[in-house]
């Protein structure tokens, strides 16, 4: 096994988040880092990093995965479900992966965790909807009074927007669903994206602290190389979350924007999910490693999991994306595959299923 810092290569640069694809929480060790995206030829395709860790990826349809390695039952069923998606986004992939986990294909712990997460998602959507309603009404109003005032506000603006009040009410629900992962400022303890940013920050702090305490832990300089995009990940995540939340300051204006151009508002809300997509798995791999030997082994897995930013990220407001964030900082190249085949694969599959039980 060898480690390399990687010089920039323009041909490696991805243009957009959609061409980068969405990270799939696979349990098959050799498919670590796999992403899914809509194919230009229709349907979906999978982007599988070169299993050796060397440059290049395999871009394969569902039927091509097995030629790389036999996926676990969990992954096979997840891939099948993904292949039926109308749109491939972090939100749709998340729902699909929760469904497969709820069905027990990553074990019973993951099934229980997926139930909890699905319930938490639902509760957060309801909470966000309630807060949007409250923002339309008198701040002091509660319960039925608040709902009446919010209905009145929708009645007032509906004619000007060329929509019926019930359409606007439905729109408000759609917006609540879209903004729920971000949460309202000061009330985001249960929101997923701020939770992910906190987890990313914690991972970065623990990783750098571990290396600082014992520099010899930093096998091949991988830890420091990975910490750079990790820090940028949570810092840019915080900026984009704050910027996206400004839309929640004025729900009426947000509804107007939605009425005029719903897809652009939904895309605006989904930016954080796209920006931070893929970091959860990396954090979990690191945080689940508790001993020094487990952390050193985890370090060798991280480079393959680092989400490289596409050039599109530079266009996000308030962000300064350095060029090096758009290429892979380092690689771990395996001369042989013993560390994730045979017995090692069983241990890694078990670990990956455990990660599914700890996901956000």
């Amino acid at each position, binding site marked *: *096994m060898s480690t390399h810092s990687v010089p920039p290569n323009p041909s490696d640069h991805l243009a957009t988040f959609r061409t980068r694809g969405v990270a799939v929480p696979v349990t098959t060790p050799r498919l670590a880092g796999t992403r899914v995206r809509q194919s230009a030829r229709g349907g979906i395709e999978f982007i599988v990093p070169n299993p050796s860790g060397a440059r290049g990826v395999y871009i394969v349809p569902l039927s091509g995965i097995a030629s790389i390695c*036999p*996926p*676990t*039952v969990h992954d*096979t*069923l997840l891939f099948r479900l993904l292949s039926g998606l109308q749109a491939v986004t972090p939100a749709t992939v998340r729902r699909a992966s929760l469904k497969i986990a709820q*069905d*027990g*294909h990553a*074990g*019973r*712990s993951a099934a*229980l965790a997926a139930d909890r997460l699905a319930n938490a998602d639902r509760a957060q959507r309801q909470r966000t909807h309630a807060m949007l309603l409250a923002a339309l009404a008198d701040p002091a109003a509660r319960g039925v009074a608040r709902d009446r005032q919010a209905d009145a506000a929708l009645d007032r603006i509906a004619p000007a927007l060329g929509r019926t009040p019930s359409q606007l009410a439905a729109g408000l629900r759609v917006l609540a669903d879209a903004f729920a992962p971000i949460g309202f400022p000061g009330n985001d303890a249960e929101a997923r994206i701020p939770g992910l940013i906190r987890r990313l920050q914690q991972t970065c702090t623990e990783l750098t602290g571990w290396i600082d305490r014992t520099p*010899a832990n930093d*096998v091949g300089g991988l830890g420091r190389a990975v910490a750079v995009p990790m820090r940028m990940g949570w810092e840019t995540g915080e900026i984009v979350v704050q910027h996206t939340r400004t839309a929640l300051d004025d729900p009426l204006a947000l509804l107007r924007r939605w009425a005029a151009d719903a897809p652009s508002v939904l895309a605006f809300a989904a930016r954080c999910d796209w920006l931070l997509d893929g970091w959860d798995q990396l954090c979990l791999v690191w945080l689940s490693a*508790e*001993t*020094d*030997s*487990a952390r*050193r*082994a985890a370090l*060798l897995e991280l480079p393959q999991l680092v989400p490289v930013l596409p050039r599109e990220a530079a266009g996000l407001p308030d962000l300064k994306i350095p060029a090096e964030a758009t290429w892979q900082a380092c690689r771990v190249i395996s001369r042989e595959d*013993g*560390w994730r085949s*045979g*017995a*090692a694969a*069983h*241990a890694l599959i*078990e670990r990956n299923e455990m990660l599914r039980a700890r996901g956000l």
Partner: protein
Amino acid sequence: MTGRDQPDAPDPAIQALSLAMAQASDGQIVRAVSLIDSLADRGQADAVIAPLRPQLRKLNPPRRLRFHRLLLHPLDALIVPPTLWRDDEPTLPRTGLLRMAHHVQQAMGAEAAAIEDQLVGRTTDDTTLIEQLGLLLWPAAAAILAGDPIAGLAEEVGRRNQHQLAQTVSVLLKEAPAIGSLIAETANGLLPPRLETVDAMVGRIAAGQEAALPMMLTLLLARVPQAVTVLDDLKPGRHLTLVRSARSQAAAVLLRRLDRDIGIEEQISSGSLAEAAATTRRISTFLNQFSDARDGKAWREPVQGLRRRLAAACQARFADDLEHGLLAPVLAPLAQIGEPSDTAAMMSLEATARGLRLLEDAARSVGGSGYETRLRQAAVTIGAANIGAANIGSSTLGNTLPLGDRARLVEILAGPEAALALLDPP
């Protein structure tokens, strides 16, 4: 250790208790040891455990962490009962070490008490804590043992040996972090032991405390068997003859231990299946490395014999756990079942299935055969067990193991294709 720990004359009550414990079941032994471990003052209770040590090694229960256990943790591979200790072999007598631990504890005073506070309620399974506290304790203890004579040590190891033994233990504890680092680096089999680390360690000991070198290499080879060939690659120099001689002594002790003391069969039959698989790999690597080493010819015969015994021990463990740990609970008769599905029981079954795969994988490296066929047969049996049930100890899985759960077990035993065939019937 206090005088009370080693009574001059055996107490009849303790003798009677020891005799009763000799008849106890495995579960009773584990509970009794846990109870004794939790005592603030063990006193003569240690004598009750003494005859059970071989059984304890087999059961391998987590032990309560205590100051002396933390201190002596890096020396584990060298520790022998006083009756088996010889001063010309790279081993350390348990009783002498306990004297040293007591001496260190007294000398450290409040610092030792602070460490003890952190050990409350923790067990030998807390490897992270052992590592963290050990890095504080071991170098401090090394400095203390290198100093003043230790009260009572001469009575345990003889006046002639006491000074040298304390110095040796001091050196080994000083090197414990370096050995720990090598273990951590190589634990997952991803990286080989670093030549520079081994070279530096050997150089430090050979320069000042060469008598400690055989013990240091015993510790190293017991935990990092891949280091055998690294020792062949050390830079030629004044220490080379010394290293070769020390390595031979270390190898002799470790091979003898496999053959006689702990014994291969006992090691493979104890602990979880995952531990048995890890032990198989470690022993197999150790034996292979000795065959491959420059003086491998000298070891060929004993190594071949041990390899055969290792293969047989793996077969026995595999067959036993497949039958009693997996198939019997899955196929338990309906009459035994009455409770709703139990997640813990299912996870226990999955752990057993995974353990069988781990052991199978490890055992193949020592020439075992037939494992895959038996795993596939077990998968077919479980796949067809649609009216079977599972009963794990006091937990039950309900009167029908759901298809999804059976598919999970089949996937672990025979791979995803077999499981998908169960889930997607033609």
